[in-house]
């Protein structure tokens, strides 16, 4: 079989088999719609609520992206501080680990109370809080593990710290950065949805999910899950595309 056909056909077959199995499971057990949805229930659910999916999906998407953007800016700065200064790393690392260890679901009510009614701000804040950690850690590790010879090559010519950062440290950290960004994308979605579901305020796909829950509308709930997965995949591959452009050199040629 041709390599390209295989790369395309095999995953498609796997998905189809999975969907058929799911359909069969629901049919075989005779589960009603208020207990479980089958794949065949999803298209009608999407059709019925299509305008809602579009508007709510957009709200979830932009708030996630803004939160992620802030996480990239803040995480990179924090990573740079920790990567360049040992003292700052010793000072900040325990705080960072402690902060990361707090389950963010418990932060939702606090944030919602602190900034009552500022739903967009709250949601962006949570997406940000949950996703900056891997970025900060990877950037700091990338910078602090730079082999001294790399520095020496430029320093022996009289290059400044800033030059060394731009010419060597930053590009060298990019593969780690993008690895972390892929994790952060997924995390940011979790943050957005936590806020939308735990502190319902009628916006975003989380709200749509919540309304499905109150009505025991399983087809709607599953349709929301699929929509969320779709957005997550789109954003993930957007990051992969950026990675190819900026850190494509890190990918070894096969063989």
């Amino acid at each position, binding site marked *: 079989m041709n390599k390209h056909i295989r790369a395309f056909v095999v995953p498609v077959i796997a998905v189809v088999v999975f969907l058929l199995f799911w359909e069969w499971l629901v049919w075989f057990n005779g589960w009603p719609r208020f207990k479980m949805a089958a794949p065949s229930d999803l298209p009608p659910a999407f059709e019925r609520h299509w305008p809602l999916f579009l508007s709510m999906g957009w709200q979830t998407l932009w708030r996630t992206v803004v939160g992620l953007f802030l996480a990239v800016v803040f995480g990179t700065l924090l990573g740079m501080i920790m990567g360049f200064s040992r003292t700052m790393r010793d000072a900040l690392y325990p705080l960072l680990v402690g902060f990361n260890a707090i389950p963010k679901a418990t932060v939702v009510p606090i944030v919602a109370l602190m900034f009552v009614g500022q739903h967009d701000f709250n949601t962006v804040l949570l997406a940000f809080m949950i996703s900056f950690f891997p970025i900060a850690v990877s950037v700091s590790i990338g910078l602090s593990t730079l*082999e001294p*010879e*790399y520095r*020496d*090559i*430029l*320093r*022996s*010519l*009289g*290059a400044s710290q800033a*030059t060394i950062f731009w*010419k*060597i440290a930053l*590009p*060298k950290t*990019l593969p780690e950065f993008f690895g972390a960004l892929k994790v952060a994308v997924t995390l940011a979605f979790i943050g957005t949805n936590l806020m939308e579901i735990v502190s319902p305020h009628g916006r975003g796909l989380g709200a749509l999910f919540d309304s499905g829950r109150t009505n025991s509308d399983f087809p709607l709930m599953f349709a929301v899950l699929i929509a969320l997965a779709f957005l997550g995949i789109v954003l993930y591959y957007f990051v992969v595309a950026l990675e190819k452009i900026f*850190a494509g*050199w*890190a990918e*070894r*040629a096969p063989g």
Partner: protein
Amino acid sequence: MQNLIEIKGVKHAYQTDAGPLPVLDGLEIAVPEGGFVAVVGPSGCGKSTLTRLIAGLMKPDHGEVWLHGEKVKGPRSTVGMAFQNPVLLEWRTILKNVLLPLEIVPSKLTRKQAEERARFLLSLVGLEGFEDKRPSELSGGMRQRASLCRALIHQPDVLILDEPFGALDAFTREDLWQTMHRVKEREPFTGVLITHDLRESIFLADQVVVLSGRPARTQYVLEVPSRGPRTLDDLYTPVAAEQLNILRHQIQIAQGRSPAEEGAE
């Protein structure tokens, strides 16, 4: 004749948790312009510290390092460096890697001239046709060759080589030794080579300095008179055997073992 590199009474200690750890103690090295000195000694005797001192990356506690009749106070752009790890930038092509120093050091060359010079150096070390490849596509020996070109691109008067061939297999290493002679003929420089390989030291250098064990001082200096461009055959002459014997003997002393003891072990 004035010496291009002069190291006078250099002492240096690293501060560790267990107190100061002296690594260099009374180092004396002098290299005339165009000379090539090899520094050999037991592991951990401070050879790499020496390269950092010459490059101006650190200052000695005592003593002085002079380059070109000027006391070294900090990094200077007239130095080129190559290490055991070729440290090529993976995101740049080989050509762009070689051109890197010219982005730091002010140069009279135009962009086009710089590129021509880089291509010339690459062809000199046998890397013609690899200009647009990435470092990951090259073998270890080829990367080391590229690293050599990078160290030479800004026409440094001092080339510091810190065990550049240490990680290569024996045949590749011998290839590179010959490349070094070819390069030095076309691109004269004053060289400092740190190495563990005694054959390498007498093949490349015209002066071999043996350092004592830590803290290192100059223990012995072997002059290797040059008889024109060397070939690998020169390594298998009685003269070379005699030189290697002397060096081996000195290293044993540096390691704190007398040759007689070794026989008894």
